[in-house]
């Protein structure tokens, strides 16, 4: 057994070697614990195969004006809608100040292709698929989409107008690879 005086030998400022070893050991154990927790948390993030489903090609040649189709990207529903002139005019007539999530229809479509409204079919409230893409479905009070789960109404540019949803339907990243083919993702 080391005597008290031996333990304290050579220390003038009141900090013993043992204190240093204690702090160093516990700190390093903490680093180790964090190093173990990180992969245990990260394993829950989307895995590589889930992330790999990230592009989808859509043929839009069969969609008539006024029609919409429902397809899927990353397993999420996507609405592709061929707007008619009246719907575009309606969307343009709304002052931005009236919108909960202000965006113009031009910001939500590609230049020269502003009749093609491509959005996720995922209500920004709690993720239900809104109605209005298929023939005869309820399009809500603003002629766009209507989410029956909690009553969110979207307009002809798929912007939130009424109900609990905070945001417009999300426009996914996409580009026209030709006049009739769109690549999403």
């Amino acid at each position, binding site marked *: 057994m080391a005597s008290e005086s031996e333990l304290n030998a050579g220390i003038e400022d009141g900090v013993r070697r043992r204190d240093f070893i204690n702090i160093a050991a516990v700190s390093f154990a903490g680093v180790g614990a964090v190093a173990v927790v990180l992969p245990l948390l990260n394993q829950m993030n989307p895995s590589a195969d889930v992330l790999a489903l990230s592009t989808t090609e859509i043929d839009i040649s069969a969609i008539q004006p006024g029609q919409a189709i429902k397809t899927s990207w990353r397993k*999420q529903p996507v609405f592709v809608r061929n707007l008619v002139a009246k719907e575009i005019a309606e969307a343009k007539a709304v002052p931005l100040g009236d919108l909960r999530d202000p965006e113009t229809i031009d910001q939500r479509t590609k230049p020269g292709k502003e009749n093609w409204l491509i959005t996720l079919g995922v209500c920004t409230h709690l993720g239900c698929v809104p109605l209005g893409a298929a023939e005869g479905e309820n399009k809500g009070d603003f002629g766009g989409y209507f989410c029956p789960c909690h009553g969110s109404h979207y307009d002809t540019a798929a912007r939130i107008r009424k*109900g609990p949803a*905070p945001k417009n339907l999300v426009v996914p990243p996409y580009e026209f690879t030709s006049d009739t083919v769109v690549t999403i993702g």
Partner: protein
Amino acid sequence: MSFPWAKPYEPQHPLMKWMDEKLPIPRLVYNATGPGYPVPRNLNYFWNFGVLAGAALMIQIITGIVLAMHYAANAGVAFNSVEHIMRDVNAGWFIRYAHMNGASMFFIVVYLHIFRGLYYGSYKAPREMVWLLGVVIFLLMMATAFMGYVLPWGQMSFWGAQVITGFFSAIPVVGEPVREWLLGGFVPDNATLNRFFSLHYLLPFVILGVIILHIWALHIPGSSNPTGIEVKDEQDTVPFHPYYTAKDGFGVGVFLLVFVALTFFSPNTLGHADNYIPANSLSTPAHIVPEWYFLPFYAILKAFTFNFLWIDAKLWGVIAMFASIALLFFLPWLDSSPIKSSNYRPLYRIFFWILVFDVLLLGLCGMQPAEQPWVILSQLGAIYYFAHFLVILPIVSRIERPLPMPNSITEAVLAKHATDASSASATA
């Protein structure tokens, strides 16, 4: 701890003496649920529901372990494996229906247990910790029930998972990444189903652990009783065994009668037909509602349809829904009245029943589509729910004049018997 007059454990048989020295489990049981635990002599049948909740948990664990032997947690085959249990596995239909309805029975008895606590002031000192642990158990039950409901991978399973994980996307900035982290993808899918199965299997045992803490915390001051007056001496109590083992045994019998009646004659009444349609990520059922036991909270979520201050409607709904449960953690301090039992609180008793009505109303609103008049009713119901705890309760507990109280449990019991006897002789 127990009362000084608690009957001591004195093993007679040499084997029991040997056991008592090595691992005193029989002593623990004797002192917790045997003759060694003195209990107020005046408990009514509302005090059965704790034991009934324990029985319901055991039924869920046993039927659940059996179901896990036949179920496959893979999005490709989960739905069919449940149908396989229903059609092919020997007695599988019975075990699954028992598990399905067992969840409802568990919530029924737990809600009665909670409202018993609210009526008789069981959450008050010295039993605050019992109440807090109870709220923790309630939260764990909700998480477990939700994840269990996802496992059959029907339409309601899928869209329930989508909507409930959607709550987290309401959190500013980190919400969407948190949701993707919970789901393991962008929509509920195989990764989600697998982790929910893993957790659904784990959490009941966590609940069991917290129940042990709940009972431990209860046994320090001892059980509450309908008068709310604490035990003063030996004549206020009777030993748990045989008095309350017998009374609880009777209660378990009644509980099982209701349970088997539901399971055998009406197994799908509390479920949704849509959950017998396989999950489809491209089509939301026309009318999605959670299981009945979540409806009041769902109504509070749906009550927010407008942005308010700088917080959007979605976040408000989610905050309000979580707050409606979190509020229960503060209850022991929101109600400052020293009187426990509503039998002696004329004013609080009225508001208690209004709260019961309010929660039932919210439950009804939760079932309805997001249309008028249900939206305004859920808004009023939600406002009243919060007002009850945050405004009415603190005020009532200050201004209320309690009714005269008996000096002890025994006095209350004997006085009741005296009036019973006199009214009996009067009618005779």
